[in-house]
């Protein structure tokens, strides 16, 4: 590497590209695999960055900055664009003043997502150009190009990242920094007030713009033909291009850096120049469908899987199965699924819920892991904020058409994290109160957006830069929404929490329990030098109470024949528990459950 080259992830390169493009304002909501974009962009002092409470807010902030003449960036994961779709579709009409780039980071394979929607479809539906880089170096260049296109065509530009671009590291070269535009207020109602009479005019402009955009797609350098052997020709975009190059380095390739709109003339000319044309793309047959609509003969999804990620082995097997080599078979092993951390405050809540006969309407975050055994205490999880509203819908169905004479208020509990509550749970709670729900909502306030790796939020008391910020009073907000029954609990006190949860569930009106304890991964929690708990094994009766917490620090040693007696335990005792002090984060939940004084805090 020379001194201008750096080893960077796709997300770091994206941030560098935005910096070099002189982006002035960036807003977004964390979500894998997009999170590190803003985390890196905030390191450049010239750029104003913020975490928004949700993606719709983030995109609207970026639109505002663009209206003020600044280059703006909105970042989100694929499902976040569903939340931001409302402003996106109309921003396609208003166009931009300062360049506007919207990042959608898709997650094929659902490494950390609830669905694997293909957001290239948004470019088609919203009539917007979309760029799709293949690796970190391209990502940086495409972002800069995105801003030039945005201003040239007066349009927001979508850039689609995927997990294997965002979270791949490669060599990236630093470039020149563009001059920064001066922001100002300029009124331009025909372009920025989208009431019907004006919107109809902009609607016509959108079609003119797409026609111009299609011409640009024919000549833009990122739509490039790499002519090789003409026996096989491939059309691909994004990371799929790299898999094709890996497996068929000799073949001809049309690489589409701009995956929408498509260059029809270029595609037809390429198709004519090769014997057989293959479309290799992850997820939907997006390119294939539109290329076939041009009347071009090609093969795509009849060979290449339409679900999950691709890789070079899958591409090889799909296109040239005769060249695939046999691999060793996998060996059957106990699985190692993700688990809540030792000392996680969520565990205390889910342990209690697992012992109550309620339907748990869950939400998106670390606490979704409450679904896994041994807690198995989550019965639904759909999208951000849906815990509150799904619980309300169930309650109303039970009230309206459930079994006669049976109580309804104690049947359904919803569980939501602090960040998810602020993202899209608040309006749901407002609805529940307004429409007389009798459900119970548990807000798991761990003082941070934990799942995506510790991002600040409107309740954490800090900005994205770590500066002090106004912190939301969650209980006060619930009161303002009209909730009359509110409790705050320390989830590490497991039996105490149980009593309060029971009281809340027994309540015949909407009730809220705020479970408040910081995430153990917070830097201040890691720094506090925890005093661990340990097992006084002579007192352990093998009741298994602590084991049922499912804490990674606690393990069970089974006794063999005669072993219990030999070690001085009751003959019938099946085994003993042990705490691994290296893993223990000293939450004390196990100690609060142990009735036999077998778990004790180690005093320093």
């Amino acid at each position: 590497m020379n001194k201008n080259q750096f080893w960077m992830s796709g997300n770091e390169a994206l941030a560098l590209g935005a910096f070099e493009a002189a982006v002035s304002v960036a807003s977004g909501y964390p979500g894998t695999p997009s999170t590190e974009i803003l985390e890196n962009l905030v390191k450049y002092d010239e750029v104003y960055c913020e975490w928004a409470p949700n993606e719709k807010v983030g995109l609207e902030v970026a639109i505002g900055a663009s209206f003020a003449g600044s280059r703006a960036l909105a970042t989100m994961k694929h499902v976040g664009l569903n939340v931001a779709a409302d402003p996106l579709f109309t921003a396609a009409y208003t166009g931009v003043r300062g360049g506007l780039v919207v990042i959608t980071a898709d997650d094929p394979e659902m490494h950390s997502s609830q669905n694997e929607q293909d957001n290239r479809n948004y470019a088609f539906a919203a009539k917007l150009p979309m760029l799709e880089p293949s690796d970190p170096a391209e990502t940086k260049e495409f972002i800069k190009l995105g801003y030039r296109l945005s201003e040239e065509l007066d349009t927001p530009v979508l850039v689609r990242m995927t997990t294997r671009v965002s979270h791949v590291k490669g060599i990236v070269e630093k470039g020149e920094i563009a001059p920064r535009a001066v922001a100002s207020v300029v009124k331009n109602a025909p372009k920025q007030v989208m009431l019907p009479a004006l919107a109809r005019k902009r609607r016509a402009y959108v079609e003119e713009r797409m026609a111009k955009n299609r011409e640009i797609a024919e000549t833009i350098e990122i739509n490039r033909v790499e002519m090789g052997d003409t026996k096989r020709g491939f059309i691909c975009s994004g990371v799929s291009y790299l898999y094709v190059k890996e497996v068929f380095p000799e073949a001809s390739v049309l690489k589409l850096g701009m995956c929408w709109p498509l260059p029809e003339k270029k595609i037809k000319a390429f198709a004519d120049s090769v014997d057989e044309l293959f479309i290799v793309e992850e997820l939907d047959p997006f390119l294939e469908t539109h290329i076939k609509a041009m009347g071009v003969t090609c093969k795509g999804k009849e060979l290449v899987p339409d679900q999950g990620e691709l890789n070079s082995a899958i591409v090889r097997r799909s296109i040239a199965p005769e060249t695939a080599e046999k691999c060793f078979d996998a060996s059957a092993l106990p699985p190692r699924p993700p688990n809540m951390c030792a000392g996680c405050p969520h565990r205390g809540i889910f342990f209690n819920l697992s012992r109550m006969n309620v339907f748990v309407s869950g939400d998106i975050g670390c606490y979704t892991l409450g679904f896994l055994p041994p807690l198995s205490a989550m019965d639904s999880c759909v999208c951000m904020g849906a815990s509150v509203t799904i619980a309300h819908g169930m309650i109303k169905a039970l009230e309206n058409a459930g079994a006669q004479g049976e109580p309804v208020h104690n049947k359904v509990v919803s569980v939501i994290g602090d960040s998810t509550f602020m993202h899209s749970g608040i309006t749901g709670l407002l609805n529940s109160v307004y429409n007389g729900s009798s459900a119970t909502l548990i807000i798991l306030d761990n003082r941070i957006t934990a799942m995506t790796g510790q991002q600040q939020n409107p309740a954490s008391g800090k900005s994205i830069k770590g500066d002090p910020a106004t912190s939301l009073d969650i209980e006060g907000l619930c009161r303002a929404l009209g909730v009359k029954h509110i409790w705050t609990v320390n989830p590490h006190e497991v039996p105490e929490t149980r009593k309060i949860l029971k009281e809340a569930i027994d309540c015949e009106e909407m009730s809220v329990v705020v479970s408040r304890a910081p995430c153990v991964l917070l830097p201040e929690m890691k720094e506090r030098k925890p005093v661990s708990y340990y097992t006084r094994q002579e007192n352990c009766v093998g009741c298994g109470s602590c084991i049922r917490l499912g804490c990674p620090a606690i393990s069970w040693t089974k006794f063999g024949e005669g072993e219990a007696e030999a070690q001085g335990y009751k003959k019938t005792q099946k085994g003993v528990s042990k705490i691994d002090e290296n893993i223990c984060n000293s939450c004390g939940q196990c100690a609060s459950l142990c009735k036999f004084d077998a778990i004790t805090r180690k005093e320093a």
Partner: protein
Amino acid sequence: MEKSGNILFSGVGGQGILLASEIVAYALLDAGFDAKKSEVHGMAQRGGSVTAELRYGKKVYSPLIEPGKVDLQMAFEMMEAVRYLPMLHKGSRVIVNTQKLLPPSVANGSVEYPENILDKLTEKGITVIPVDAFALASEAGEIKTVNVVMVGVLSNFLPMATSVYEEVIRAHVKERFRDVNLKAFALGRNVS
């Protein structure tokens, strides 16, 4: 000296796999290779199985290693050495930290940790290099340096000189942890 290669890092979330793979990547880059590395973040990191894939050569396209093409595997836990068997081939070398971390089903007593698990690799003809990295990390003075001990062992199978790694460690590890990590690297490097 190998002109290209594929290194798989496997272990359990929280073992410092990402830092280990970063050190190796920087050392390869310093030696003039092109490289790409793939990681997965988010939910997978919460105590579950974690991998990082590092590829190097004159020019690297795909960021993912093809099954059957791993040359070197760094396994930070015994079971995690065997979980990716389809990624290996007969000539693969697997460096294993002989530590056992119990997955939930083993910790709660419902299944046993598989015995003699590394036999599943040796019986295929794969070279296994077992290392008690936990003991060496303790000897270095910080159990969290298991990852850097492992990098030290791995360095014996890559063409770069010790000084390249030492420089990378100095550049990428916080000052107060620098010496202990350099010691951990040296202890790993000297494993024969």
